[in-house]
């Protein structure tokens, strides 16, 4: 440790620590400022992160899947004509890979649902209930009745809001009309066997679930399917999974990751990552003026002392280090306080922050009305690193000035 000039780093640190507390009130105010800044950085980031993470997670569950396979024309024209064959043995084998969490195939067509009272346009999903649960449908969301029990189930599961709109009820019959191949109108009566709730009312009004085999029989479409949904383990890094599904599905199908299936969700995540950094830097800048000011004052009132130390043989580098250490201690202490404060304020919110007063507004953003703050180690690290690194850089100026006084001039100053 030659950096300390002639004094060992330990002695310099002790000196810095004592200097820090020579003006208790000033140090305390600065500590409070740094702690408030760090708290705001971390707390706000945790709230925003929580909102976006949940939006993305809910969005992926609603798609569902990290990656979907479609007929190339399907997304433009979601007709049963634009369908795929049931996945073959080779595809099934490829989906046994460890980075695939689950997959399922489904029929998904626009349809009209009619009760005795009203009609609505919906999206009819023909699903394999087991696979559907594996890729994201939560059976706990069933608020009445039951979920489907097999691909051949003849029942229908609808959203809570849709049930209300149709003025019908569990156990009642509804008619679903859709379009089979060759523009024939296919219709079938269904009994409502289950009602589900979703985070967003729009989803409750849009999706109705029926057995895959039942829907295929109704549409007279053989074993054709509309899409394959695959989930993995890390939605932020979806490229390897995308590659795997792409090579398994072959060239004739369109394979897309969730970021392209729902560009709003994809851009939301990117915008969020950018926002976190901008927010942290802005808060730091607001802090930095006070930091420089405090250090400048601390240096200014000690000019004589610095001169004396140099006259006694302390090297300028040691003085520079001493001021930097003082700043580092101030920053570290402030950060420690701020981090503890942030953790303490996120903790009571772990069961969710109820935002239902602006629930419809949150729905506009595509977010749920209960917000679960997400304190990510990475964000925590980023906030602390930014403050320490930029803080030390900002302190270089006062530290450098302190080390540059000529001993004689400095001592002569009153």
């Amino acid at each position, binding site marked *: 440790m030659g950096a300390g000039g002639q004094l060992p780093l330990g002695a310099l640190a002790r000196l810095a620590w004592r200097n820090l507390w020579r003006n208790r009130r000033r140090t305390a105010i600065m500590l409070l400022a740094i702690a408030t800044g760090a708290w705001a950085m971390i707390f*706000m980031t945790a709230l925003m992160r929580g909102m976006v993470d949940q939006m993305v997670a809910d969005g992926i569950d609603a798609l569902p899947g990290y990656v979907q396979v479609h007929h190339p024309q399907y997304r433009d024209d979601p007709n049963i004509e634009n369908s795929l064959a049931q996945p073959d043995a080779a595809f099934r084998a490829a989906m046994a890979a460890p980075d695939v969490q689950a997959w399922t195939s489904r029929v998904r067509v626009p349809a009209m649902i009619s009760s005795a009272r009203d009609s609505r346009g919906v999206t009819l999903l023909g699903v394999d209930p087991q696979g559907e649960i594996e890729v994201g449908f939560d059976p706990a969301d069933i608020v009445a009745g039951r979920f489907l029990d097999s691909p051949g189930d003849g029942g229908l599961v609808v959203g809570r809001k849709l049930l209300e709109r149709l003025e019908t009820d569990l156990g009642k019959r509804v008619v679903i009309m859709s379009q089979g191949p060759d523009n024939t109108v296919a219709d079938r009566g269904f009994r409502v066997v289950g009602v589900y709730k979703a985070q967003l009312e729009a989803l409750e009004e849009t999706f109705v679930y029926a057995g895959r085999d039942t829907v295929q029989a109704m549409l007279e479409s053989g074993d054709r399917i509309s899409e394959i949904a695959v989930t993995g383990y890390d939605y932020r890094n979806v490229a390897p999974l995308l590659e795997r599904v792409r090579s398994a599905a072959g060239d004739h199908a369109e394979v897309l990751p969730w970021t392209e299936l729902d560009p709003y969700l994809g851009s939301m995540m990117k915008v969020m990552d950018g926002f976190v950094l901008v927010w942290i830097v802005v808060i730091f800048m607001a802090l930095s003026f006070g930091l420089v000011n405090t250090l400048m004052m601390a240096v200014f009132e000690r000019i004589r002392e610095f001169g004396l130390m140099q006259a006694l043989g302390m090297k300028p580098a040691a003085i520079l280090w001493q001021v930097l250490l003082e700043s580092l201690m101030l920053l570290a202490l402030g950060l420690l306080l701020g981090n503890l404060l942030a953790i303490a304020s996120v903790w009571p919110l772990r069961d969710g922050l109820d935002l239902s007063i602006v629930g419809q507004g949150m729905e506009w953003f595509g977010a749920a009305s209960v917000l679960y703050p997400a304190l990510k180690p990475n964000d925590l690290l980023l906030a602390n690193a930014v403050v320490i690194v930029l803080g030390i850089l900002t302190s270089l100026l006062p530290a450098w000035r302190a080390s540059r006084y000529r001993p004689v001039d400095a001592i002569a100053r009153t």
Partner: protein
Amino acid sequence: MTLTFRLAWRNLWRHRRRTWLTASAMIFSNVLLVFMISLQFGSYEMMINNTLRAFSGHIQLQMAGYNENPKLRNSIADVRTVAKRVRERLPNAQVAARASGFALASSEERTFGIQLVGVEPDREPGVSSLPGLVRDGRFLDDPTAPEIFIGSTLARNLKVAVGDEITLLGSGRDGSFAAGIVTVAGIFESGMQDMDRSFAELPLTYFQDLFAMDGGGHSVVVMLPSLDRVAAAVTTLRNAPDIDGPLDVLDWEALNPGLKQAIQADMSSAWFMYAVLIVLVAFSVLNTQLMSVMERTREFGVISALGVRPRRLAGLILLETTLMALIGFALGVFLGWLITLYFNTAGFSYPGMEDFASRFNLPGKMYPSITPLSLVLGPAVVFVFCLLAALYPALRLLRLRPVDAMRTA
């Protein structure tokens, strides 16, 4: 007074660097606040205007309960007469009658369930921007013609072009079977997904015949010259005896609860950020002023021994802070105004914003709106908080004891 002022001004510049650093903290946050608040106001305004202009209008008259639960049965008996009465009450407003329902639309190849709205072809362009967003063909022009104006995604999904026929199937108001064949007059592209995918307009009279509405409709839409006239217009309509009765007068907030709440949610997170910035600046001021009081303890001791009241000393500190805050205010507002002015003409955007913005009916670029309020609001709050922060150091002077103070090294 002038003496105190000169004293304060000189004291301020005894520590040039410290004063400028503290003022810089104010300038920094003021510039940021001016820009952010102007951008916020600008985007809210645009969001509201684009959303209201697209379809909902500023005010709608509907039957009670229709807004929550739009049923074909719950209709206004003679919708055109109601519209006429509204027009008489609000001579400056654009007013149009509408009816809406749901039907299955089939082309030769495809069938989709869609939302159908019957509109008055001559009035609708006054209350909605949709008729102006024609991509192919034209907007409706004959109130009785069997014509339809559909969204671009719907046209693509149905595989129809202008001049093609679409069969509509639904049920009428009396429960009868409603069926008709209409010709595509025009195709619109609004950029709003739901609108483009599952929405179509028909001439009102034709709609009424198709759905056995017997002259009825579901809403009277009012578009005013500007948003700030909404409250007055709502009061006028609510007090009109021949209009109110069984009808609900709904303003844009009631018609778009999501819009209002999205703005509120966004505002509350923005206010949190602004508050943090302001508190940090206040800390900075507190520290500076406290230092400046403590290093002058001796001086203040002498002055008060000469007979100057402690209250005047406290006033001096507050005056110094006020001067510093004024510098921060003036420079902050000026620089903030310059930056905002630049983005006001050039537009502001960041990567990924376009995907994001279209969901909120916003264009890819945002234009901050410069108003006296958006310029002054943030900096004024900063100003007040800086003065509050200086209260503690100033009040300490009230307890100053000259003898002890003069002994301080």
